[in-house]
Every structure is written in C-alpha cells, then in structure tokens.
C-alpha cells in the first residue's frame, strides 16, 4: 500500500514532477472545432439572470430573518439564506474565477470577489490554487484542492458539512496573510507579482470581519454575524455535499478526467446552487465551456464517458463505501466502466494507479 504525502512541498509532488505526471497532457474527447466553438461562446444573460435571482433571494431571506429575529420562526429563512451564502458562493467563486460565467470581464471579477469573501477564500490565492487544480487534478503533492485525502478522516468530512475545517483553516491564514505575508506553501503556486494582492485582500477581509464583530458586540447580539460570517458555517452543507462527489472515491495520479472526476444528475435547485458543476468530468475536460452550456456539452460527449450517477443519493451510495475501503487500502478506488462507444482508458499511461487495486474495484 502506498502512503500518500499531500504536502505541496513533499516527496510525492517532487516525484510527480520528475516522472512527468505533473503538467501532463490529459485525455480529452474529440469534439469538432465548430461544435466546440459554439459550446464555448460566452453570454452575459444567463449569469445576470441567475445573479439577480441569487442576490434577490439572499436579501429577501436575510430581511425576513432579521425581521423575525430572535424568534425561532426566523430559522427557516436563515437556513435558506445560509445555503445561498455558504454554498452558492462556492460555485460563483468557481465559475467567475474561470472567467466563463459572464461574457463581460468586470462582471466576472465583481461576483468573484464577493463570492470569494463569502466562501472565505482569499481571492488572489485561490485563483492560482484552482489553476493548479486544473493542471494537476488529484495529482498527490501537486493539487492544493484535494477535498478527500486518503485515508479519509470521516470526522473531518462530517465537520466539513458545518464548514468547520475550512473556517478553522481560513481565519488564521487570513490573519497570517494580513499581518505577516504570503505563506510558504502559497508561494509554490502564487506568482510573486500577485503577493501584494494576497495581502491586500486579507486586510480587507480582516477589516470587514472586525467591523462585523464590533457591531455584534455593540448590539449585544449575534445578529450581524448571522448575516456575515456565520452563514459560511450553517450554510456550507450543500457545497460540501456536492463538492465531495466531484472526485471522491475515484482515482488519483492519473491524467484522464474520466478516471478521477464524477458527473452526477441533480435536481434543478441543486443545479442552480451548484451552477451545473454536477457535470464535472465535462468541466474538467473543457474548462472553457461556461456553466450554462455544460448540459449541451454533456449530451455531445457522454458517449465517451462513464455513465453519470443518477442522483446525489445514488452517488453517495457509490462513493461512501469506496472511502471506507480506502481506510484499509489507500490505493483502492472506483474505476467506472466505459460504454462501448468510448475510447478505452490508456492503461499504459496510468500503470502506477491502475494496478491490481483498480482491477479489483471495477
């Protein structure tokens, strides 16, 4: 059994660079250029519609929550507000970070900064970490966004549904960035020219949280924190639920997204919150395709992909036992069958990962 070292400064990362696994050329399904160009086309309209709906709902839910505070009747409105603040912000951060949500660059940037603040990610740092995630998806020691490290610590996963590990990691890092500077691990993927921005963003966030806490203390109430900050805890569950499914239980150290990413059919509400990132194989294979075109991309390439999971529950039913088996064997993973119309996995590319464990898992 291989013991994984997820540190970005550790031996696994160095080995990935030495063997050519890092920054490799990944498999992608062939799509005619004309069709791909049509899929990649940008538009402001869908994201403006969705953003107005999102912010409108947030204002309405928070407004009713404040009006009914401190009655327990306010609870459902806080729960709804929390999911939009603490989960929808994840997908908005993601899509606007790619620059694909809107056609107009400043719109992407404004929503990206707001979403980064709400999801508690330094916008300057995380833009770069996500670039690395796309370069080296689930390459151990290279990808800074591996959500489930093997062997999984289930208590941490459960705590993640309440945002606890993320917030516990964010707050000291925000203060470090604000008062000390860029952390050594961040320097491995953030270019030096961006370091001042990392510090500036951290200082702005620190000031906003400081003002919110001061207001709460002044009012003798946690109400201000119910609006800013705490929703990242009580509303995190949806983005954790969907995020775990992106890669959980699948292969690592491979260069074919069909092996390490998962597409899941989801209900319309979850797809609105998640901005269609349930089409995750498609997104990783073609990150230039905006969220609103992912269903069309899925239709165009599904002949070459493993069958999607049919629901969130069905996907968890597949993933959870695999995570449990990884407690006994870190090398175990789910290798989904491909349809007869698909190009087969390149076993020679993935020999290290697709060993005996893969055969047993199929």
């Amino acid at each position, binding site marked *: 059994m291989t013991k994984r070292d997820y540190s970005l400064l550790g031996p696994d990362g160095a080995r990935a660079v030495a063997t050519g696994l890092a*920054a490799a050329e990944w498999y992608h399904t062939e799509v005619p250029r004309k069709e791909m*160009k049509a899929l*990649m086309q940008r538009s402001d309209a869908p994201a403006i519609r969705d953003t107005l709906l999102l912010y409108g709902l947030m204002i309405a839910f928070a407004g009713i929550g404040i009006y009914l505070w401190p009655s327990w009747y306010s609870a459902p409105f806080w729960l709804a507000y929390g999911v939009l603040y603490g989960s929808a912000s994840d997908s908005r951060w993601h899509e606007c970070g790619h620059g694909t949500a809107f*056609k107009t660059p400043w719109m992407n940037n404004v929503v990206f900064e707001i979403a980064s603040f709400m999801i508690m990610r330094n916008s300057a740092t995380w833009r770069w970490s996500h*670039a690395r995630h796309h370069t080296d998806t689930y390459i151990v020691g290279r990808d800074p966004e591996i959500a489930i490290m093997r062997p999984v610590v289930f208590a941490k996963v459960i705590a993640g549904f309440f945002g606890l590990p993320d917030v516990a990691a964010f707050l000291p890092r925000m203060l470090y960035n604000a008062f000390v500077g860029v952390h050594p691990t961040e320097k491995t993927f953030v270019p030096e020219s961006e370091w001042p921005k990392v510090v500036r963003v951290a200082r702005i966030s620190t000031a906003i949280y400081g003002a919110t806490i001061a207001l709460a203390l002044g009012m003798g109430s946690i109400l201000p924190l119910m609006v800013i900050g705490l929703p990242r805890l009580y509303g995190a569950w949806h983005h954790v639920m969907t995020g775990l499914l992106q890669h959980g239980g699948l292969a690592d150290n491979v260069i074919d997204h069909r092996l390490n990413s998962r597409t899941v059919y989801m209900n319309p509400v979850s797809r609105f919150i998640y901005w269609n990132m349930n089409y995750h194989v498609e997104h990783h294979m*073609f990150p*230039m395709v905006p969220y609103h075109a992912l269903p069309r991309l899925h239709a165009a390439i599904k002949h070459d992909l493993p069958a999607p999971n049919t629901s969130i529950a069905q996907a968890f039913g597949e993933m959870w036992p695999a995570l449990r088996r990884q407690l006994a064997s870190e090398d175990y993973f789910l290798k989904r069958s491909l349809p007869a119309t698909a190009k087969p996995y390149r076993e020679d590319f993935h020999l290290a990962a697709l060993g005996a464990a893969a055969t047993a898992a199929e």
Partner: protein
Amino acid sequence: MTQWIDACATDDIDAEDLIRFDHAGATYAIYHAPDGKFYATAGKCTHEEVHLADGLVMDYVIECPKHNGQFDYRTGEAKRAPVCINLKTYPVKVEGARVFIQVS
C-alpha cells in the same frame, strides 16, 4: 536570419478563429480577426505550454483552453490571470490568398 513562411490559405481560418501552424520544430497560432486582418503568435500559452489553437477567440483576445488565461493576440499582451508573461508575436502578410508569417 528572418524569413517569410507560407503558413496557410486565408480561407483556412474562419473569421474570429485561429489555427495551429507548425514549422521547423516550432508551433505558432495564426488568427483571423473580426476586422479581416491576420495575426500570428507563439502557439503555446506562456503559463503552462498548452496549445492555444484549442482556445477561444473573442474579438482580439485569445483565451487559453486550459486555465482561461487571455492574451491580446495583436500585441501578445497578457490580459487575464493566470497568464503573466506576454505572448510572442510575429509579423504577418497576406499575398493573394495566402498568409505568410515572418519567423527567425
């Protein structure tokens, strides 16, 4: 020494699109701008060596297919993270129905 290389026909590239052109071990990207002019740059993104030919041309911007970094392909200027280093550009001329690029 510089030389003009016959790269492609003008109608090989749709308007607001690009193609890849390989020559003497180097790879280039040739663009057909919305105003009808042609431009040429290095073929790979300065961020992580990804071929730009699979990217998206929007007006005078080429977006890298891997990380969505953007360049102005007329000047090579890096316009959007994660690209920070400008893209090398090459002179282009059109003679008849052929596009030539000047390489060294």
